[in-house]
């Protein structure tokens, strides 16, 4: 589960940034009695860092293309860092669109940034590692691949299925602590927990269920004792 926030305009401001008293981070607005952060000089990384700390209600000066969704993924591996940033402009009010003349408008706009955090447990999730999971499922007895095995994230309906060669992969990374449930009718269900030091590729064995099969069906018939011929004869003379 990624943490993401949307930078969007809550209340467009009509003040002119150049009139503000300069501060370290931007300028001071007398009307709102607030420091207005100048995001136009920040990199994406800086913006992400900034909003990790800050609560809602930041006033800022941004370029139009900075008004988008930011995905925050705390990841030791730097090469993957920007993999999770999605690019799309959201939350831009129609009023602003009318005012802007071009996509590459360099005139910054003052907005009140609206930080909406998707994942409520941001404090916890932010520091949990994520893993791109894939692997193979085989029959423990003979080592043959098992196609059609369901792999579901426990407690959800999100999952995948092994292919003809027993291989599977998850497109979205899984978070440490999540449990994968491996299920196939007739086989013992297995669980696998996503941990920090897990193998890159999971090799999982599944066992056949070893139950004895029996099947006494309930009958709609009622007990009837067999009677001897003698009884039958006697009944005739009743």
């Amino acid at each position, binding site marked *: 589960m990624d943490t993401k926030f949307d930078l969007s305009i809550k209340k467009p401001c009509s003040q002119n940034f150049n009139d503000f008293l300069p501060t370290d981070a931007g300028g001071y607005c007398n009307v709102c009695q607030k420091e207005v952060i100048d995001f136009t000089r920040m990199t994406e990384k800086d913006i992400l860092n900034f909003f990790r700390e800050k609560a809602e209600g930041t006033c800022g000066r941004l370029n139009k293309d900075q008004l988008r969704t930011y995905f925050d993924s705390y990841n030791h591996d730097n090469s993957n860092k920007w993999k999770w940033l999605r690019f799309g402009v959201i939350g831009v009010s129609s009023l602003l669109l009318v005012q802007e003349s071009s996509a590459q408008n360099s005139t910054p706009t003052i907005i009140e940034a609206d930080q909406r955090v998707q994942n409520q447990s941001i404090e916890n999730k932010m520091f949990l590692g994520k893993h791109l999971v894939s692997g193979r499922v085989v029959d423990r007895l003979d080592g043959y691949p098992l196609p*059609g095995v369901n792999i579901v994230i426990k407690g959800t309906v999100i999952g995948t299925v092994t292919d003809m060669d027993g291989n599977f992969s998850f497109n979205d990374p899984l978070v440490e602590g999540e449990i994968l449930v491996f299920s196939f009718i007739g086989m013992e269900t297995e669980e696998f927990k996503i941990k920090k030091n897990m193998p890159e590729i999971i090799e999982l064995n599944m066992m056949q269920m070893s139950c004895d099969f029996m099947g006494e069906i309930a009958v709609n018939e009622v007990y009837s004792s067999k009677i001897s011929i003698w009884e039958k004869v006697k009944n005739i003379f009743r």
Partner: protein
Amino acid sequence: MKAFVISLLLSTISNPILCQLQDFGDIDFKVADSIALTLFGEDLTNLPVLSYQLTSALSTDVEKFRAIYSWVCLNIINDVDAYQLNKVKREKLADKQMSLNEWNEKFRKRMFKNLLEKQSTVCTGYAYLISELASLSGLRCEIVNGYGRTAAVSLSNNAIPNHSWNAVEIHGKWYLCDATWSSGGLLIEESIFLKDYNDGYFLAEPDLFAYSHYPIDTFWLKTNSKTSFDTFLSKPLVYKYAFSYQIKPIEPAKMNVDLKRNESLDFVVHIEKENIAAKLSLSIVQGNWTKDVNLNILSQTDGIYEFDYTFNRKGTYDVHLKVDDDYVATYSVRVKN
């Protein structure tokens, strides 16, 4: 004999409160049952997701189990052909462990394949599905193997286990249930399995359950005192209506009774509901001759009813306890001079 299934419209659950459900206060299974209904027709290709869909919206464990139980009884078809084939094979190979194991391996593979592809199976398949769906939803649920007594089965001391059912743990206590027997019954002559839901086997009262179910591992009896296998074999025969009407025959303690002519046969029966007691009757059968008798109730205290009947003639009689036209239990009475 080609067997096929007749699917009736699911009969609505009759009595809302059955014995063990007293543990759960005034619980109502309407929501759980309706969830099961909305998932009617789902296949078994993804059990974790099915389990989730059946249970995630329910807040109590008993309701989650109920949704699963209802769904299985509704959707799974009893494979009568397979039952008959397996029964014959198992009886034939009873003494030959190796061959029996080999047969079981083959049969098991076929059973799981059929379960997946046709949603049809024998009782162990039902029990497997119940335990799997329940376990996936976080409940402890086991398959219990043992002996099932019906009118069509004559079990002896040497009998091999012939039935599977389930035990589920809810709030630290184990409850018993039999989805196969809940879902319907076999019409022997026509070889047709008739789907007719009986609620009596859902969280059944252990003492009564022990009249017709005896587990290999007696841990699963769950009765106050453990009965022996011999005692089990000798008990009066009870049917599904004993469970749904909550009627337990106490005396005579054994199914086979020896009596003298004109000596009264004394019955003691526990009946949970007074209005049901009013409908109880005896049906005395000898060959083609049947006599329906209204009860002469001698005493009634706290649900315990005593009545008797006297036989005037010698002979062997089937004595049935009935509620309206529904058979509850049977004794076999031999009257001598």
